[in-house]
């Protein structure tokens, strides 16, 4: 005989058991407390009705024992199913009742979250890519002498190349000696190339982050102090091909693997051949837009093969070693990447600006 639910309360033929049937039918309407006590009353190990009925099986007449036992067990299963069903239903009711009083769309309780400056983020990302290419990080002082900032980097005195570096000088007597000269705020991170080559024989493979200074008043695209990151690789057998390959790899990792990259001739006194690296405008993807002045390209960095004069000033054998260097401006790249129209926003410390750069927040490129 099957025990489908429609038969669950069929009479058993045993009066003591049939007396329990109304209680079985009453289970679906029991409240939580009544349900708990009824479970104990029916199935309780000490005094449960069905427990007692099972215990009475041996005292029944022998011919009745088997049938009675199975009737008790059937009824027990029916009670168990009914109790479980009611219990589940009561749980659901409780949950929905609890929720009915709470508007879960109300705003969450949050914690203050800080963030690194967007320029730091860009800088770290750049460094990370170059670490993967075997570079380590070097730094140097921000106040330098004429020699480190210009002379050793092959800036001839009285040369128009100096016009590209509007220099802030320190009001102090010049330092004596061959590597001395007027004290100034470095106009680029390139003096650290000199310091690195003076201190460490090749192979050299370093990136140099830091602040640099120019006598440029603040305007939407200029600032008197801003960040730069320099790279220098010097070893035997390093060529223009390595320069191109490494910087293209960088551009593909920093932007996208399909970003178009081009190198075009440029001039820096301390590299030759010198180049400017442009990447496809990240806004218009090369079709031309106001951000790229219609060219489809964005200027990202200057680079070139280290000029032999730099080796001559640092005692490196220029016949044996060759190398390349690059420099780029994380402030400017940050502006390009996040669409920041005015460089001064990067200096103001405005909380409403800084909060836009909380990791996981909205970042548009």
């Amino acid at each position, binding site marked *: 005989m099957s025990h489908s639910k429609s038969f669950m309360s069929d009479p058993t033929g045993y009066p003591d058991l049939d007396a329990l049937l109304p209680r079985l039918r009453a289970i679906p309407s029991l409240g939580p407390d009544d349900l708990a006590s009824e479970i104990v009353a029916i199935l309780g190990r000490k005094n449960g009705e069905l427990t007692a009925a099972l215990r009475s099986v041996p005292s029944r007449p022998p011919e009745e024992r088997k049938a009675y036992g199975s009737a008790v067990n059937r009824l027990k299963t029916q009670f168990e199913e009914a109790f479980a069903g009611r219990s589940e239903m009561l749980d659901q009711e409780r949950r929905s009742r609890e929720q009915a009083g709470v508007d879960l769309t109300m705003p969450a309780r949050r914690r203050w979250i800080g963030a690194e400056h967007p320029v730091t983020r860009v800088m770290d990302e750049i460094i990370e890519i170059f670490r993967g290419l075997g570079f380590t990080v070097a730094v140097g002082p921000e106040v330098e002498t004429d020699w480190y900032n210009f002379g050793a980097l092959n800036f001839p005195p009285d040369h*128009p190349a100096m016009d590209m570096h509007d220099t802030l000088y320190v009001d102090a007597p010049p330092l004596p000696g061959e590597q001395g000269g007027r004290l100034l705020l470095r106009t680029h991170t390139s003096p650290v190339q000199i310091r690195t080559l003076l201190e460490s024989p090749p192979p050299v493979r370093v990136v140099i982050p830091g602040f640099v200074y120019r006598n440029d008043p603040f305007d939407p695209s200029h600032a008197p102090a801003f960040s730069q990151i320099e790279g220098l690789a010097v070893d035997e057998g390093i060529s*223009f091909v390595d320069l191109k390959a490494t910087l293209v790899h960088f551009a593909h990792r920093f932007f996208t693997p399909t970003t178009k990259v081009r190198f075009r001739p440029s001039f820096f006194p301390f590299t030759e051949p010198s180049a400017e690296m442009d990447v496809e405008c990240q806004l218009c993807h090369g079709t031309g837009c106001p951000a790229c002045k219609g060219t489809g390209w964005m200027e990202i960095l200057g680079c070139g093969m280290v000029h032999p004069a730099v080796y001559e000033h640092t005692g490196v054998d220029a016949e044996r070693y060759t190398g390349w260097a690059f420099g780029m401006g994380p402030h400017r790249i940050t502006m390009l990447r996040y669409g920041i129209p005015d460089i001064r926003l990067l200096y103001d410390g405005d909380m409403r600006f800084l909060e836009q750069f909380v990791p996981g927040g909205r970042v548009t490129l």
Partner: protein
Amino acid sequence: MNISRRWLEDFLRRPLEPRDLTERLTMLGAPVDSVQPLHAELGDVLVGQVEEVRPHPNADRLRVCIVNGGTAERRNVVCGAANVMAGRKYPYAPVGSTLPGGLRIEERKLRGETSQGMLCSARELGLGQDGEGIWELDTDAAPGTRLLDALPIADHRLVLDIGPNRPDLLGHKGIARELGASLGVPFRLPSLPSAELIDVPPVRRLGNTGKVAGVGAGTEDPEGCPRFLGAVLRGVRIAASPPWLARRLEAVGVRAISNVVDATNYVMLELNQPMHAYDLAKLRGPSVIARRARPGETVTTLDGVSRALDDSMTIIADDGGPIGIAGVMGGAATEVGTDTVDVFLECAYFAPALVRRTRRALNLSTEASYRFERGIDRWGGVEALRRCIEIIGMTAGGELVEAPVDLGPGPQNPARIFLRPSRVAQVLGVDMPGHALESYLVAVGATLVPKSDDRIAVEPPSWRPDLSREIDLIEEIARLHGYQNFPADLRAFRPSLLADATIERISSQVRAGLVRQGLFEVMPHPMGPQDGPQSVRLANPLSSAESYLRRRLLPGLIKLVRHNWDQHVGDVRLFEIGTVFSTAAAGEPPHEERHIAAVLTGRREPPHWSGTGEDRIDLWDLKGLFEAAVALAVPGGVVQVEGSGWIARDAKDRVVGSAGPLEADAPPWADPLFGFELVLDAGARTPERFSPLPITPSAERVFALVLGPGVTAQQVKDLLQRVGGPLLESVSVQSDYRGAGLPAGTRSVAFQLTFRASDRTLRDVEIDEIERRMLAALESELRVVRRVGSAPGSGE
């Protein structure tokens, strides 16, 4: 540097498309900043042929012209120009057209006669200064042809960004040479629009000084002026330049002035040779000599400013004194004017570094100084002088009475350069055949000299002062080969053996730690006013308010807090990791240090509708942040009370930082401001180590202690730790109570003590014994006793 597309086309004898031109120049190393179409607004103006000229019935000065404007119907145009003649062609603006400046041509009556359009002067079309009479066109174009199609007027101005190493690109000829090499076509000087040119005999080489047509000329300063060419033209007629010449100048943004002056400017823009024309009648002597200025001499330059000279400057002088500053600007006294009849033309080479020093000393930059200080073509003067004389002869008439003179020793030719093909391959990473190298060098104008070994001996061209070393030639080869034609495959490399700069690594850790505390990193402007006697002063500051390098970070951060307050933002939590500067001993560069500083004000947590988040940041938040920063930035550092805040000491007991409430010009609604500043120690850190998790139970005790005046929690804690020894795992403060039930001036502080032995379960009797000794020591050393009423061993 402005370049005219049409001028270049005349050099190359072929049309150039602006977009292709831009791309080509950019890839050759002369990036184009902008391209501006010129005279596009003349699209409505046609070639008109005047078929008949009748007198105006009602006005003596006006004429009625019958104009063929290309349509079957003839148009009546009333014209006031005296030079209008039947059969000639003129620019014709028909009814409905608009002229530059916005004049819209409509049909109207002039003194009773209908006028259907306008015949225009060059000036009315924005094509020169010539406004006298209408512009007679020399063209075969049929009437009705667009003027822009009939005449070489439509043009593009390209603004180029020329690096300081390429003075040869500061003239159209230099650009044409590059383009010619790139396009594989020859380039030639454009022919001048005249059938007969004045005959210019070859220059005469004399000594450093000599005479030309009776004028003493030359150089007495061969260092500052190694070469001086001069010519005299008599009987010129000063007038406005013809349209072709004016147009050339205006296409590159140079205002046309008069035929003679314009001729010198034309030559400068075409051949990159600045020239100067003197009014011979105003020269004393007459003579024109380059020499060093004498102390006390002055000259009034063309801009009307009197300038003091010194003996570092090369000047041009006549017998009476200075008449110009060599390579920078001519003098007002000898300027060519409308009444000039005879001119002296100067065409010189001035030494770049001297011109640069002079123009910097005088703070006077000109088109001429810009070119001389970069280095013009050492041997370009002869061609330039001839060209200038021809143009003056064409446009102003005049007679060259004697062959021009060429004076001075001449600039030194640079040494030969030896190029090794193996070095080219080493630097560029690509093997190129010898003939390819040679063809690139020939294309830039170098002369190759046969050599017996495998080197190539190269004489660089006179217009390339930047080519002096082997590497300079390698750059030329790379440039002409095309940077885009080098492979970009990553090859094997040796990774860096240098350790990372520790200061950067530590800065990153500290930065991450402060971000975790909910602070925002900032990078403010690092200059400001003086901040104590050790501030480092700038010699040429941007402004007096920012004439010192910062000695501390906090003043800059407080300014940023003020900025936020000004924006009505009150919850501000900022930090900076940056360099500060202070003066060092004489003969030493300023001392640089990396600091960390933070400022914080406002709510401790974001406000929430449930009512939480209304607490304000207080001293204890600051102390926590400061201690966290010290732990990150100063290995072995400790925080101590100092005044109304705290200081940090490093392991060598030096004070390396401080924290406390900050004074600021705060709005009334602002919350208190707190901050700290700390020196970042780049020294080695002890790495974190694992310690085994406890396997024995701990025991907790709470002491409610009454602390008399002057007794600090720190003193109590130090004592408890000293007495408790290794079994006392930690001490924390649970509460600090003052008020009812305590003797005046005292407070009750509850300390929670955690005891644990790592190898066994502590028994109560052991702890009781320690506790007894602690209480005895507290009482005898600090007069600290248990609070009456607190239960022994279990707290209150």
